[in-house]
């Protein structure tokens, strides 16, 4: 099978799409010749087929990564690690339109949104490039006659499994901190969206990385993903995806070699609006909170709680606001919301909408398919949703907002925390005391105040409870990829 295919995109961008596995800085076919189809969610048509990594290919990648880790990569200075990451950032910026266009084709998000993702990815590389030569251990004075210090050493060969909702951005979140701290990686893209990861892989060698340091494979979760989780020579697995799959990965890690595990999983984040909030501002953030990226965001503000004093006013204003969300072709410059990523996701979301109707929630707007082709769903608002309803408890991962009212601050906290998830949350208020009190008491990894989805490469991000283990972004991510070695030197002679 050919290792590339010429693809011409709807916006005129024409390029060579790599189709193989990227191992040891080279493009190869899968050992058994397996491949899988890649579908365009806007047209429901097949774009191409890419090589599928099996357990055997994962094994080859691990060997390459291990050789690099024990060999050439271990001799590279922190400064040079940073330099290569900075080069990658520059190359991402240079190729921004290409990467964004491929993303829009494969994932369905608007090209303009994808451009934002690619720039954010470049920023992540630059940020972690800057950390590479700044990872410090400590010197700890315990007693005269002893000299003690710690070193922060890389974990080793890291398997990284990324999702389909922000393919290229998630690629950067994983690679940045792992590489900065001296690890090597095998990164598996999502089976729904393998294309941008492969295009990005063409930049790795140019950025200066030695062979085997960054290996990029396409594959199925239940095959390649499972192989990574269970591999005896992978030191750590990092996964972003659904909570059920996160559970399987943790089990496989435990059953194999107790590899280190970090997980970014699902969410059902509360977006809480108090009477004293600036309602216009709050509406803009609430809209963005649930409808951004077609609702396919782990930290989406999918449960909206509005204090009873402004509830009616809010619902009307929110309905009016979402009519401005343009649903359409990702290559159209006006588009805000493209199609859901796949048939499976489309069916899932539509089935939750049916549940909502059956459970007795009120449809304020939307509730059906948009158009007749492509996985488009109308932006949907349910009101009068009660706590026990499926649409209030389970992660829908689509453009479906559930709204309910609350009375007091204590009610808001209780309801906000009434979930097995704990990824993000938000509170909209002009009161200093309310903001601090609510942010202290919500059990969530991020609390946004008077904003939503305000992620930034400098700010740690991750979940409480079943939303995950560990934090990504910020300095915190470095801890996922380092281990502490304590060295204790005796300067005082024998025991007695």
């Amino acid at each position, binding site marked *: 099978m050919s290792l590339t295919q010429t693809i011409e995109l709807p916006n005129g961008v024409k390029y060579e799409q790599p189709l193989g596995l990227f191992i040891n800085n080279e493009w190869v076919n899968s050992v058994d010749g397996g491949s899988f189809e890649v579908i365009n969610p806007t047209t429901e048509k097949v774009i191409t087929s890419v090589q599928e990594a099996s357990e055997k290919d994962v094994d080859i990648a691990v060997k390459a990564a291990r050789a690099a880790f024990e060999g050439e990569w271990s001799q590279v200075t*922190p*400064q040079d690690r*940073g330099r290569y990451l*900075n080069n990658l950032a520059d190359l991402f910026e240079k190729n921004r339109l290409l990467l964004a266009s491929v993303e829009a084709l494969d994932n369905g998000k608007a090209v303009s949104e994808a451009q934002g993702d690619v720039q954010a990815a470049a*920023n992540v590389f*630059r*940020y972690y*490039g*800057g*950390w590479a*030569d*700044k990872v*410090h251990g400590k010197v700890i004075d315990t007693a005269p006659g002893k*000299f003690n210090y710690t070193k922060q050493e890389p974990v080793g060969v890291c398997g990284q499994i990324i999702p389909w909702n922000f393919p290229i951005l998630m690629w950067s979140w994983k690679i940045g901190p792992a590489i900065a701290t001296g690890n090597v990686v095998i990164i598996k893209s999502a089976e729904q969206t393998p294309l941008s990861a492969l295009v990005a892989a063409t930049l790795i060698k140019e950025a200066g990385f030695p062979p085997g340091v960054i290996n990029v494979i396409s594959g199925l979760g239940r095959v390649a993903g499972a192989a990574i989780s269970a591999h005896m020579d992978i030191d750590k697995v990092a996964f972003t995806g659904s909570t059920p799959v996160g559970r399987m990965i943790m089990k496989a890690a435990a059953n194999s070699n107790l590899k280190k595990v970090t997980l970014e999983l699902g969410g059902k984040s509360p977006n809480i609006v108090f009477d004293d909030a600036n309602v216009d501002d709050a509406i803009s953030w609430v809209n963005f909170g649930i409808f951004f990226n077609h609702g396919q965001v782990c930290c989406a503000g999918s449960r909206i709680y509005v204090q009873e004093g402004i509830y009616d006013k809010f619902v009307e204003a929110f309905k009016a606001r979402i009519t401005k969300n343009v649903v359409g072709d990702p290559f159209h410059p006006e588009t805000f919301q493209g199609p859901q990523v796949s048939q499976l996701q489309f069916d899932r979301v539509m089935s939750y909408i049916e549940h909502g109707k059956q459970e007795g929630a009120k449809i304020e707007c939307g509730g059906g398919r948009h158009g007749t082709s492509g996985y488009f769903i109308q932006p949907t608002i349910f009101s009068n949703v009660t706590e026990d309803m499926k649409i209030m408890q389970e992660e829908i991962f689509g453009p479906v907002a559930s709204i309910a009212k609350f009375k007091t601050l204590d009610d808001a906290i209780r309801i906000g925390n009434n979930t097995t998830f704990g990824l993000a949350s938000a509170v909209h208020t002009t009161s*200093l*005391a309310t903001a*601090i*009190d609510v942010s202290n008491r919500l059990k969530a990894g991020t609390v946004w105040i008077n904003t939503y989805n305000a992620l930034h*490469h*400098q700010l740690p991000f991750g979940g409480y409870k079943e939303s995950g283990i560990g934090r990504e972004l910020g*300095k915190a991510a470095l801890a996922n990829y380092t281990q502490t070695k304590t060295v204790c*030197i005796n*300067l005082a002679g024998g025991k007695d």
Partner: protein
Amino acid sequence: MTLPLFKELTAPNGKKFNQPLGLFINNEFVKSQSGKTLTTISPTDETEITDVYAADAADVDIAVKAARAAFLNPAWCDISPAERGQLLYKLADLVQQHEEQLATIETWDMGKPYTVAKAEDLAESVNVFKYYAGWADKVEGRTIDTGPNKLAYTLHQPVGVCGQSKTHLIFTKKTYNNRFNKMAAWKLAPALACGNTVVLKSAEQTPLSALYLAQLVKEAGFPPGVVNVLTGYGKTAGAAIAGHEDVDKIAFTGSTATARHIMKAASVNLKNITLETGGKSPLIIFEDADLEQAVKWGHVGIMHNMGQVCTATSRILVHESVYSQFIEKFKKETAKVSVVGDPFSEKTFQGPQVSKQQHERILEYIEHGKAEGATLVSGGTPHGEKGFFVAPTIFADVKAHHKINQEEVFGPFVVIDKFSTQEEAISRANGTQYGLGASIFTKDITRAHRVAAKLDAGMVWINSSNDSHYAIPFGGVKQSGIGRELGQYALSAYTNAKAVHVNLGTVL
């Protein structure tokens, strides 16, 4: 005829470049208010290179006003930390692109061998700018939990207008004449990464590369007034900066004597100070040392950069059992490696001293050494007919009380003596008003770490000398200075921690 603001110069190596001659204020090159100029000469052949404008108190005042305005201007104070980092990365790239011109200027104006200027100093400047570019969005305050009645956090804010200079204070940076480009990077980079604005005064002996660098600052995209560069005399411009009431901080690198004046002058408005001053750093060779390596490191430790290095390990203390062996080998190594000559020649290891004044000082110390009764092993004379060259000079059997053992010579001039016990070595090493660097040569793990802990020095090298790195803090104890440059430590000199307490429940 008034001096123009730019001049096309052709260096001895044939390189042509456009040299700014004015003062760099608000992203423009301007004449000094008084029209005053100074002349800079090549220490290699004592010829005049060019005149440049020289700043007085009036010019300093204008520069400080520009820096203050820039500090409050949203174009600088409201950009994100990551954007500040971007500007520094851009500056690093530009310095790299212009490395040949900058190295040429350094060699012509200061006498440093060209190969060293390019491969070491310029490369390091680029590294330093990139390193602090990476820190810009990583300077973080804290939240501190004291209980439910308070939300307490710290903001790490820029200090303000910083004078950096080689001789004067002001929240400007003053830089040493010995390695301008590197010193400029050491001072500018952390200050800018943290959001400050700067008035930088170069040394009067070596004004040119700072002005050339100023062009690159503008090209990188720093808003006007963020970086200002002045040429001037320490006694006038430097003093003006030191005593200026609207400068928030001064960083100075230079002699201890001048640093005292700066510290006194800084007290006018209690401006924050950091000082990198002199040194008389010891290099201790124990009986189990790798003698070949000790000789090589010992040689570069004092002879590199014509001995014009604050951290030069200029006092070598050798265990008596290997003393005469060491001296013989050291003499041979010096004769072999310290090729004295034209700094533009690739063969040259040692160029001229930077100025006539420095040259004469070293010759005086040579006379002192002879008069005090130390043993002259080699050198001890000027070198050549023209230019400020000095023969690499080695004195042995130098006693603790000797002038040449106590005072910083700042030339290719080393004093050597012997010791018998570890305690004696430490005591001799610490017997100085200075405390900048120190080196230990030994293979024994216990001795290495124990002695390192006992030496009064800001930096200790075990089995090397002057082996600095941009990520590792640099500075002195005792009269070698206040504060640290390089590494993460430099950031604290350029930030103020502001504690904010939000009362959540303490009601009166």
